[in-house]
């Protein structure tokens, strides 16, 4: 047990270290954006009619702590970031954690549902594809997984919008109906949310499913040919029992291992799909922060949030693997 605790602590440290490296990369990138927060604040005052000078900008810089050395500011940023505090947005002039709070959890929820959907489909279908000898089924599935790559989510979203606009005259955009947008959470709002959230979940899950089917199928066909499966079959284990007990369990480990990167792939698609479906509650805030206003504080916070959730997933899957896979368990416990 002590060894297991040791392993968990080690993994947690590693995850923490990854986050520190990532935060350094993100912070450096945000520093590279031309102009800084002080200039934006003062520019805002200027647009409000006040006369400004270079001195004003300098004063503002000192007030915001932007005159401090680079490393010190990074240290402060990362220290606050781990406490969930990202300061104020340069443009919107609101507290970032308040601004992101609910939107982030909604986005994460949608992405995780997409991931769950992908594997709920991919695991049974992948296993069937690996075991069946039906060439039509196999080729059909192969084509579907290829389409997952060739028709990326944002094109799929466009196609669905095109189709639904032409057929039903509704482009199916947004996460809430008009009357529920600012309403407090209650039963009716949840139902409204669910009646609209299936589309982004489906679209985000689309290529994830295609990838997952390919992975599951490849892993299963590798395992099925192995001797231990033949041995089990020789002992008289057959059918679904054989598949579930032996090759499926083996194939599961690499899948759990890659969940973090699957989530990464879904995050990749989120901002663009969100833009197309005008999910203002989700990733399109990032596009807003970057494209429209160069709001480096907000953009940095969002990327940090996304990466942190991937690192967390990786950490959790490592622990799950250590608990479920006897091979890894024994290598930890010695």
């Amino acid at each position, binding site marked *: 047990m002590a060894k297991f605790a040791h392993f968990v602590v080690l993994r947690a440290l590693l995850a923490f270290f990854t986050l520190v*490296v990532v935060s350094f990369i993100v912070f450096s990138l945000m520093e590279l954006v031309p102009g800084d927060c002080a200039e934006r604040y003062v520019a805002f005052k200027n647009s409000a009619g006040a006369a400004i000078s270079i001195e004003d900008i300098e004063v503002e810089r000192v007030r915001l702590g932007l005159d401090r050395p680079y490393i010190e500011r990074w240290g402060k940023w990362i220290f606050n970031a781990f406490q969930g505090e990202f300061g104020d947005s340069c443009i919107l002039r609101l507290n970032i954690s308040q601004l992101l709070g609910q939107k982030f959890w909604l986005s994460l929820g949608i992405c995780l549902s997409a991931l769950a959907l992908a594997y709920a489909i991919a695991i049974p279908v992948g296993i069937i594809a690996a075991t069946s000898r039906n060439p039509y089924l196999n080729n059909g599935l192969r084509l579907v997984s290829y389409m997952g790559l060739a028709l990326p989510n944002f094109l799929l979203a466009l196609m669905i919008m095109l189709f639904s606009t032409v057929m039903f005259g509704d482009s199916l955009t947004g996460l809430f109906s008009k009357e529920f947008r600012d309403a407090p959470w209650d039963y009716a709002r949840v139902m409204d949310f669910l009646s609209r959230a299936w589309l982004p979940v489906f679209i985000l899950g689309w290529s994830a499913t295609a990838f997952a089917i390919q992975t599951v199928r490849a892993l299963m066909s590798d395992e099925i040919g192995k001797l231990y499966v033949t041995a089990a079959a020789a002992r008289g284990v057959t059918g679904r029992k054989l598949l579930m007990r032996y090759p499926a369990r083996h194939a599961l480990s690499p899948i759990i291992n890659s969940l973090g990167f699957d989530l990464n792939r879904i*995050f*990749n698609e989120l901002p663009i799909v969100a833009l197309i479906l005008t999910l203002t509650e989700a990733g399109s805030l990032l596009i807003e922060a970057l*494209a429209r206003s160069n709001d480096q504080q907000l953009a940095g916070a969002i990327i940090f949030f996304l990466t942190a959730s991937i690192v967390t997933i990786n950490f959790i899957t490592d622990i799950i693997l250590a608990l479920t896979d006897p091979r890894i368990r024994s290598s930890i416990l010695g």
Partner: protein
Amino acid sequence: MSDTVISQDQKDKEAYFTAGQGQLIWTRFKKQKAAMVGAMVLAVLILSGLFAPFLTPYDPTIAGRDKEYLNGEPQIPKFWDENGFSARPFVYTYERQRSIKTNFRWQTTIDREARRYVVLLPKGDKYSYFGIEFETHLFGVDKGYIHLFGTDSTGKDIFSRTFHAINTSMAVGTIGVVIAFFMALMIGGVSGYYGGWIDSILQMITDAVRTIPTIPLFMALAAFIPAEWSAEERFFFISLLLGFIGWPTLARRVRTHLLAERSQEYVLAAQLCGASSGHVIRKHLLPSFTSYIIVDLIISFPYMVLSETALSFIGLGLKDPVNSLGVMLQNVTSADVLLNYQWYFIPVLFFITLVLAFVFVGDGLRDAADPYADTKK
């Protein structure tokens, strides 16, 4: 009789054992039907991209626009209508006007009497290859314009733009892949060859870069581009970015391969002969997995193309007058386009075909480059 059978068998074996790696890969590749079809489609698309200025009738930029036909629907050449048959295909003349009768809105009317006949090799917009100017195009019409895929909101010919866009995507992809390739080779190579603590540190950095979602990061970087940059500068910057973000996956594979190879006897033999590290890497290790690297490059190519498309689509990537699929799709989410101008989506079909062709070829090559592919089955 049996002699000839044996000698034939012998010859086959001899050919097999003396064949170079390239020949072996080609032999295995040829056996895969899907990959061969993919390769042919890919070749056709790339060639039509390269010869786009000749194959398409008009300049894809604002210079080649048709002022009389904005947001015009595709014109399909016909051989006959109620006015009789014509051996030469033709399209109708479209006129755009507004007056008090149309409530001052632009309206397009079709003049079915005035035919425009398709002609081969007409002279049109100028284009240049290798500094030599040409003005002959494959086809056109005798009067006015022809728009096989319709036009966009400024009257640019979507057919011409689509083919030029293939070219752009291929160029962005190539530059991106080449940069990613060199970075992966350097970082993965150093990490895999030296191992030890250098490897550990480089791996940590690679893993950290891999956990950052690329498109959001990409958006953050692309937002730096100053607004006053020209289209060409943007183009190179975007390609550079694609390369700088795309290396980790490839670097990991290079490293894994080198780690496995460097403990082989032939490396030890070379080192015992006094070969330097550089010599061992260049002369012995790199050739051992060039084919895998090439396959990896081809597989990562569509990702580059798609990232560029996604980025341009949200307006952070390429911009007019550079043509790419993303640029062409920039305004399609508006209800106006969705309801009235569905031909904006025609280029999407070409890009799905392009990416699919790449995927098929990449998969086929991967199987073909695997030396154990025959023994596995």
